[in-house]
């Protein structure tokens, strides 16, 4: 229900747009009350369960890695005072991270060339995520002051390039059940996993953020995006919890 509500809020300006357009037929829709912007961003975030599950005992390290994005968008101001607008865009973005965590009784699957081992793992896990998406954000924009805009809405993303892998080390894997045969990973020994093929092709979520007008052309912005569906396919059960894309984007825009 929550999601539907968010969609409605996001789509409402579109309806208003249609209304407004009819009243101002003589003016060119694409020029009048329109802003065009290109943006560059970097993203800090990760693929994380909302609320860490009990299996995760410790985060040893986290590296947001350099994740860049480029966006072009258009904003149609719906009111003459340019208070309300609707913005659509097209964005190429990377979402990724590297983490080291310690887990306990973590249900997972280790792959090796067509052989797979299902079971439970206690120990350290390294995760590398590097996915590239083409994203269509749709937002409502509200101008609070001449210098400040806030915006929020939904986005739809398609996966272009994927990578979700890592390895387990310094721990014990138990085959099939928590009391099954043990495989120890000591020192430099690693058990690799690669869930790249399990990364979901389609993502959707919400975003909320603000932008600050530096001068006539330049804007600084920051927004937060949250994926409603998990990063990995829902029928994928080698990790017992669902992970979501949660990213903070920081960047600047050039407004024409």
């Amino acid at each position, binding site marked *: 229900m929550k999601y539907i509500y968010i969609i409605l809020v996001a789509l409402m300006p579109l309806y208003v747009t249609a209304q407004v357009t009819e009243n101002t037929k003589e003016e060119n829709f694409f020029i009048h009350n329109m802003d065009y912007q290109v943006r560059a961003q970097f993203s800090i975030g990760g693929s994380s369960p909302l609320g860490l599950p009990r299996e995760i005992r*410790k985060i040893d390290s986290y590296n947001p890695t350099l994740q860049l994005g480029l966006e072009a968008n258009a904003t149609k101001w719906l009111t003459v005072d340019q208070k309300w607008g609707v913005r659509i865009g097209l964005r190429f973005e990377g979402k990724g991270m590297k983490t080291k965590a310690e887990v306990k009784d973590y249900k997972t699957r280790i792959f090796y060339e067509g052989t797979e081992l299902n079971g439970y793992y206690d120990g350290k896990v390294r995760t590398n995520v590097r996915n590239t998406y083409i994203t269509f954000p749709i937002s409502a924009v509200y101008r609070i002051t001449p210098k400040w805009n806030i915006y929020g809405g939904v986005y739809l993303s398609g996966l272009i390039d994927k990578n979700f892998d890592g390895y387990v080390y310094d721990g014990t894997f138990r085959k099939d059940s928590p009391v099954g045969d043990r495989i120890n990973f000591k020192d430099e020994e690693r*058990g690799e996993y690669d869930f790249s093929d399990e990364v979901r092709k389609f993502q959707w979520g919400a975003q909320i953020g603000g932008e600050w007008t530096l001068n006539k052309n330049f804007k600084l912005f920051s927004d937060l995006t949250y994926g409603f569906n998990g990063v990995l396919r829902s029928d994928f059960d080698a990790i017992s919890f669902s992970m979501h894309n949660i990213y903070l984007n920081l960047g600047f825009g050039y407004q024409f």
Partner: protein
Amino acid sequence: MKKNYLLFSLFLLISVTLSSCIKDEAPSKQAYILEATIADAEVLLLNHNKKVGDEDIIIFQLKQNKEDNIFAPEFVLSPGATIQPESGTSLDFTNGPQKYIVTSEDHAWTKTYYVNFILSEFPTYFNLEDYLLYKGSAVLQEEYDVDERYASDVYINFISYTDKNEVNTLWSSGNQGFSIMPAGKLKLTNPSQYPTAVDFDGYKGKAAKLSTILTGLDHKMTGFIKTPGIAAGNLFTGTFSLNMSVPAASPKFGIPYNTNRKPITLKGFYKYKAGDFYGAKNEFALKDLDRDTWDAYAILFEKTTDKNYLDGVHNFESEKMVMVARIEEGSYPETEQWTPFEANFKNVNDKTFDPSKEYMIALVFTSSIQGADFRGAIGSTLWIDEIELVLEDN
């Protein structure tokens, strides 16, 4: 005004961070015995190696007879686990193994162990008549049927019985490792398809059949999990504990040599057929050998408190070795008839046998002589039976 929005985004960040906090630790699901011992272990036991692997049979080998058979085994368990009967409980082992049940901290998982104390003269004759059926590392309490369909991780391990008809798990093989990875990939349906299997048509009664088998795994040996492309059938005295980064080091050779008589000769009967396929790209080709051959050897080595074994990559270079008996290269060719073989013990490392010292002994048989390097011909098969260690008379 600006401040407000900064605050707003800060709040958002904080709320996300807070919901990501580390939760209270859940009770453990593990239920293992990690170590097992008794009071005065050094005095009473031959092999007081306290570490317990995945095997569900724990055997304490006694040095000599005790008036009664009452012992109070003490256990170290995985975190939070509990055991019934409790650690330190005195039990009577006169009538064979006692059953122990370990329960995980979250009470959802249990593992059953059988603990026994055996007293055995040093065995010098191995007829290879007896085996147990295993699934993973747990003993299956059922008869093995050659024509039955089994799960891929079911295999056999040879055992011996003591004079009192008690199980002595002195033999091991790579079968347990094979059950974890290749067996599933190869979709095995019967323990006879394992590298180490029982043959019902031996020289006398049953025999061991060791085969060199294609594992079906990627075997570039460059990844972090090293998976060999072939597995040579092997049979050895000792234990097996899978080592993912150096698979060849998984076998741990050696059992207590509880006799003060010097070993003279290793002998037995064999049949051998060499394979001639070395993989599509000759990837398992032998080094300095034209045709695959088998190997049999025995090593007497000094007992140590730490790492009291020779692992599969010893390469006859261990300083602990005292005497070695190994079949002579080229003396025992391929044959379809049961043929006797023998190898005499020779001193190595300038050491000599001292009856007052404690030793370990490894007996090792393999269907491909370079199997430890994962070289060998697919299809090479060794049958082995009626193994004997000839000892010097006192």
